[in-house]
């Protein structure tokens, strides 16, 4: 909008009309100026900043006071937990674990094997295995008599042959008794 447009000239009639004064009405100029000044001050942004800030802080303080005045309630949180079922494997028959008993106290219970007439029972290798496994207690005792079958039957003492007996007596006489 251009303000430089030349306005048409006023005629004498227009000037005579302009000489008339509009009715002043019921204006209260002082009150209007007071209200205008008050509103101009109220509408300043700085004037509204501090009340707004104070109101917001008061609201926060009131909220915290309400929160602190309430008793603490247990916080129950419901969660959905997905549990995956383990894959079912075919059961295997449990294999019995081998039980190994290593005890020397079982020595008295070791039942010495009677001497058998089987020469394999008196073999060095067999005796060595017995001693390694059972100790000295595993040595066979001289059997009192011959056994019959699987039962332990005392056999009558076996007398060495006369020649051997004589020889053994000589050795005892010469070197003393066994230690």
């Amino acid at each position: 909008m251009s303000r430089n447009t030349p306005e048409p000239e006023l005629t004498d009639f227009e000037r005579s009309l302009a000489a008339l004064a509009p009715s002043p009405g019921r204006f209260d100029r002082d009150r209007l100026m007071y209200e205008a000044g008050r509103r101009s001050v109220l509408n300043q942004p700085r004037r509204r900043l501090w009340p707004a800030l104070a109101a917001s802080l008061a609201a926060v303080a009131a909220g915290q006071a309400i929160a602190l005045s309430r008793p603490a309630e247990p916080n129950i949180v419901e969660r959905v937990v997905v549990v995956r079922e383990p894959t079912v494997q075919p059961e295997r028959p449990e294999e019995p674990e081998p039980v190994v008993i290593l005890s020397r106290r079982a020595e008295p219970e070791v039942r010495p094997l009677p001497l058998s007439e089987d020469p394999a029972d008196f073999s060095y290798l067999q005796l060595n295995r017995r001693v390694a496994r059972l100790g000295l207690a595993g040595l066979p005792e001289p059997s009192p008599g011959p056994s019959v079958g699987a039962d332990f039957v005392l056999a009558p003492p076996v007398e060495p042959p006369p020649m051997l007996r004589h020889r053994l007596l000589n050795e005892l006489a010469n070197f003393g008794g066994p230690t």
Partner: protein
Amino acid sequence: MEPERIARLLDRHAAALALYARQFCDAPEDVVQEAFLRLSGLNRAPDDPASWLFRVARNLAIDAARAAGRRRRHESRAATLGDEWFDPAVGVGSGEVDPEEAGRALADLPVEQREVVVARIWGGLTFEQIAEVSGGSSSTAHRLYARGLETLRQRLGAPCRGTRRNPN
């Protein structure tokens, strides 16, 4: 806006604004007061305070008339109130136009012409400012003004005489 500037605008335009708002509503003083209060509440002064005041006063006056539902009734009886539009103590001595006759002649004008005549003669607005206030064009404002002024001249019996430069 500074209080001194508001006071100058008040002294300069308050009466003309009241006359202008009187074209639309029954309580022009309230409309003018509200317009000045809104002006004082602005964080930044408008570029053209006079035009701004007339536009706000016009809108407020029309809103007030619509709210009261009396606009048409007020406009129809405007002629009966025309003798109150001008101060009878001013202008009588000049001997050219009688205030009461001028008020009645002005009240008989159509509201569109009356609005432009009041804004132009007593408000001191240019036609461009009037067009901005009323929402029309400056040529339309000029045409309405010419018609209204001719009607007033005929009714008041004023002769057509020479022109003078615009004092504004």
